[in-house]
């Protein structure tokens, strides 16, 4: 078996949720790494869209931000923010939206704005950026984050980007254009996916060597629905090689073994 870290497998597993041909709205950080891996491996025809404007670039590893020339390389157009977040995403053309976040709650709502009270914050975070737009309009939402107790509260301190809000009809009741999207949360311990009947995150896969108890003790809500759990498929030689040699060759985002 190939030697890999769970951080590497987290990115690899997240990339597997992107299908060749998908239009993918990508933020920065780990979502960018996972999307780039999909682009350089099994989804060469995915349309990578960046919120600053670029469409379908041949991304040069490893961009530092959505304003990096590396995300404009050989794009079909470099476009505008309204062209990307408006003309593609709000228009309903994004198959996948990929975001991160500081807190993710039981309904897959995401907080990237504030820890504590909004008007009297304990820690002020960067804010929505394009994340709220992405979570409101993409047909499928992918969230990637490291699995720590503080990142998975029962309720977010502040809902920046919508999951299922407060239950199965939460998005529909709020008038969000995509009422029942698939949502997958991929972490270094597990994969949790939205159960559309309850509107809540349900544990579906465990990372190799990780027990259900470890996931539960790092999650403030109970994502266990009693369904049989799969193990995340290990990283293939090809996936690892692409991630290490092509996507993040300097180990900027993902540390090596």
């Amino acid at each position, binding site marked *: 078996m190939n030697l890999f870290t769970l951080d590497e497998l987290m990115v690899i597993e997240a990339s597997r949720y992107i299908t060749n041909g998908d239009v993918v709205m990508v933020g920065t950080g780990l979502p960018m790494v996972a999307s780039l891996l999909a682009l350089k491996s099994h989804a060469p025809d995915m349309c990578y869209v960046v919120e*600053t404007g670029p469409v379908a670039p041949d991304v040069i590893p490893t961009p530092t931000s959505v304003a990096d020339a590396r995300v404009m390389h050989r794009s079909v157009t470099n476009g505008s923010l309204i062209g990307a977040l408006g003309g593609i995403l709000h228009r309903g053309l994004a198959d996948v939206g990929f975001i991160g976040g500081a807190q993710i709650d039981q309904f897959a709502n995401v907080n990237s704005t504030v820890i504590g009270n909004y008007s009297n914050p304990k820690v002020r975070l960067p804010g929505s950026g394009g994340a709220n737009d992405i979570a409101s309009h993409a047909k499928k939402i992918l969230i990637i984050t490291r699995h720590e107790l503080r990142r998975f509260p029962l309720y977010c301190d502040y809902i920046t980007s919508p999951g299922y809000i407060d239950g199965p009809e939460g998005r529909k009741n*709020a008038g969000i254009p995509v009422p029942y999207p698939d949502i997958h949360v991929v972490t270094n311990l597990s994969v949790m996916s939205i159960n559309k009947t309850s509107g809540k995150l349900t544990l579906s896969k465990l990372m190799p060597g990780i027990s259900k108890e470890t996931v539960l003790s790092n999650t403030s809500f109970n994502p266990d629905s009693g369904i049989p759990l799969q193990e995340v498929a290990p990283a293939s030689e090809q996936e690892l090689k692409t991630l290490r040699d092509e996507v993040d060759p300097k180990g900027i985002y993902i540390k090596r073994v």
Partner: protein
Amino acid sequence: MSSKFGNKVMTANEAVKQFVAKDSVVGIGGQTTGRSSMVLAHEIVRQGISNLTLVGCSMSVSMDLIVGAGLANKTECGTGNVEMFGTTFAWRRAIEQGKLVSKDYSHLSMGLRFLAGSLGIPFIPIKSMLGTDLLEQRSEKESKDIVISEDPWNPNTPVVLLKALSPDVSIIHAQLSDETGNVVIEGFTTHDVEMAKASKRVIISCEKIIASDEIRRRSDRTTIPYLYVDAVIEQPWGAYPTSCYRYYEHDSAHFRHYQSCAKDGGNKYEEYLNLYIRGTRDFNEFLSKASNAKDLINLQKSMQELV
């Protein structure tokens, strides 16, 4: 040769003195590590123009400097962020200490507010932010800029109405402009075109001033026509340490230096402002203190490999 549309070329010092007044709403161009008008942000700090409201999408170190110098009391944006280099620390600290009011929006919401301003329409609908605290957690004072209404053609379907936003003045860095303000932005434009067209005044800093004849011969490249522009500043490296597509890469070393000062705050941050901005006559003097010719050439070379 001057143009019949008027020569708008001036120094950063003159443009900021003339067009950025105390209490203004200032539009901030660029995003994160790319194409921010650092030359104009520096000049605002150097002249100490205060009580500003800074508006934009993803606001970067240009915003952070003005906030860190204590010259802004409000921001309206999608995020304060320098991505791989961390958050905008002076902004974050000002919010945490209650010295700055942040009005939070999604990026598309900000972009559409500028678009509405650019079209002269009073408001614009959007279907983002529904169901979230971006709508719910707003104070009484600020709630008036966002209204949840009903789609007139689809009863019982909620829609968010955003008030148009027209900054008093915007500061935008571009690759090229002629002396009348026909501007060429290369690479991503983010919200800059809509914001410029919505603004009452626009100051453009650019890498190079080109002849109006060159604009007219390839006018499909014009991103912002002269009608919207009040001042043109030629400042090579005017976006440094952020990048300028086709010209130079961002400077990671200076970013890290700025971020470490901004994160620490206090004397260390004041020393940065004093050394590089308050203690310099202009942006060229800043550049000579912040970098050297060899490093700058490397940033140019590095960009050439990416385009």
